[in-house]
């Protein structure tokens, strides 16, 4: 079983939903449409051949310049063959809705809450989607790129003074 075989399997069942794929550092990365996340991940988990039965991580992404700005990244792991796969999906900033996978993996619960907390991605069907690390009355999503880390009114840290 190698990346080519897994990709072929994914293409076989979810052909219309795969947007692109790449292999940075030998890790198969498949970008799919958000509507297929549920089916794809439960397929990857349940079938013995891809067999990605362990959810390593979920995290969010933000690319302000692209059309679908917000992204969710899933890392799955097959412990028998020690292979990983990365699934990405992108949604627009106005309607950032991705189906939840908490019914497939219990561990997705807090990971999705964290992603919601920082990027504002709504996980449809999540049992308890509220902020986890930040305070509940925070009214913005701090990991989005428009929130600069430093106070924009400060002028003593101008990049020009550092030759940048």
């Amino acid at each position: 079983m190698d990346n080519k075989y897994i990709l072929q399997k994914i293409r076989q069942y979810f052909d219309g939903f795969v947007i692109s794929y790449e292999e940075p550092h030998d890790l198969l990365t498949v970008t799919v449409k958000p509507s297929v996340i549920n089916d794809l991940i439960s397929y990857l988990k349940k079938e013995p051949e891809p067999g990605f039965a362990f959810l390593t991580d979920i995290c969010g992404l933000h690319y302000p310049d692209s059309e679908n700005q917000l992204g969710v990244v899933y890392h799955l792991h097959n412990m028998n063959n020690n292979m990983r796969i990365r699934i990405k999906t992108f949604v627009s900033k106005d309607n950032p809705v991705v189906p939840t996978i908490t019914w497939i993996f219990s561990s997705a619960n807090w990971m999705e809450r964290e992603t919601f907390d920082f990027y504002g991605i709504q996980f449809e069907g999540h049992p308890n989607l509220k902020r986890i690390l930040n305070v509940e009355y925070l009214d913005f999503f701090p990991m989005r790129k428009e929130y600069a880390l430093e106070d924009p009114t400060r002028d003593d840290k101008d990049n020009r003074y550092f030759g940048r």
Partner: protein
Amino acid sequence: MEENTNLNTQEYEKNYSTLNLGPTHPATHGIFQNVLTMDGEKIIDAEPTIGYIHRAFEKIAERKPYYQITPLTDRLNYCSAPINNTGWFLTVEKLLGISTPKKVDYMRIIIMELARITDHLICNSVIGVDSGALTGFTYIFQEREAVYEIYEEISGARLTTNMGRIGGFERDFSPKAIEKIKAFLIRFPKKLHEFENLLLRNRIFMDRTIGVGGISSERALNYGFTGPNLRASGVDYDVRYALPYSSYNDFEFDIPVGSQGDVYDRFCVRNEEMRQSIRLIQDALNNLPEGNFHADVPEFYLPAKEKVYNNMEALIWHFKIIMGETNMPKGEIYHAVEGANGELGFYLISDGGRTPYRLHFRRPGFIYYQAYPELIRGGLLSDAILTMSSMNVIAGELDA
């Protein structure tokens, strides 16, 4: 009967009480809050609240050059900082395509295994404390101190070590450091044996821990357990063996597994892992190759301090590296190391600038702590405390 009583029906019903455990409570060893629903002393449900020491490391990392992120990783799991540092450097080296000399790999194994020992020591001795045996804790902390002295000899710092460089180490292990490691290797197994004897077959300890806070292997995998907690429930997944990094595949070591996944099994697995760490350190030290203690990457490896003070070019390089004036290659990387608590992953996206575009830490503690309500449901309050200390949740790692 019913018409004779004037009580309304709600008062017949069983009343649950709500108990607020934490955020600052001496039994929780860190800032954890749990709102417990109790029926007498039995726990019906728990609602953990986290984020009390959230420091926005992922956001800060998007603004910092790569070297300046190392101190942030120190503060994730501060009980085993060298593992975090090395994990971060390995991630950056993977991005840059640097291959390190064997000597660096072996030196890294030595410090990472020392860190694993300190982390497991704290966890195991605290299980003792929470079950009422303070003695082991006070004895074994001498050994933790010995490891911290070794860190001090190698890097100058004790807790948040900031140890190493991209491509290797700041300096070679001094003869004094080697001497201290050797002395530790001779003394520690005896002390560990003594410590284990205090608790392992202790009737009170066994009664308190066997069958408490157990989890099956399926549930543990479903909850994203990794590290000793997963191995205690019987899955032999260890990143050091499964996806070897830093030349771990040169060494032979056993992966201890438990069967019940309860507090006792976690205790035993951690104890055995310390023995395996000793074995690894011993092997690495005996086979420590001759050679350079860093890879030859002048663009990323900081020049020696004496040169920085006396040599103009070295000073320029020092400034450029620290301020991140060298652009990094583009890339997307997930790299995991076996942290003391489980799989510590770094998901790094570089867009070619001086700072990461996105850096996400896969903190094992954050992921498996969500199983805590399930583990303690139906148990007693005192068992809940034991379960928490046996899971070894570190607040810094939990909240990032």
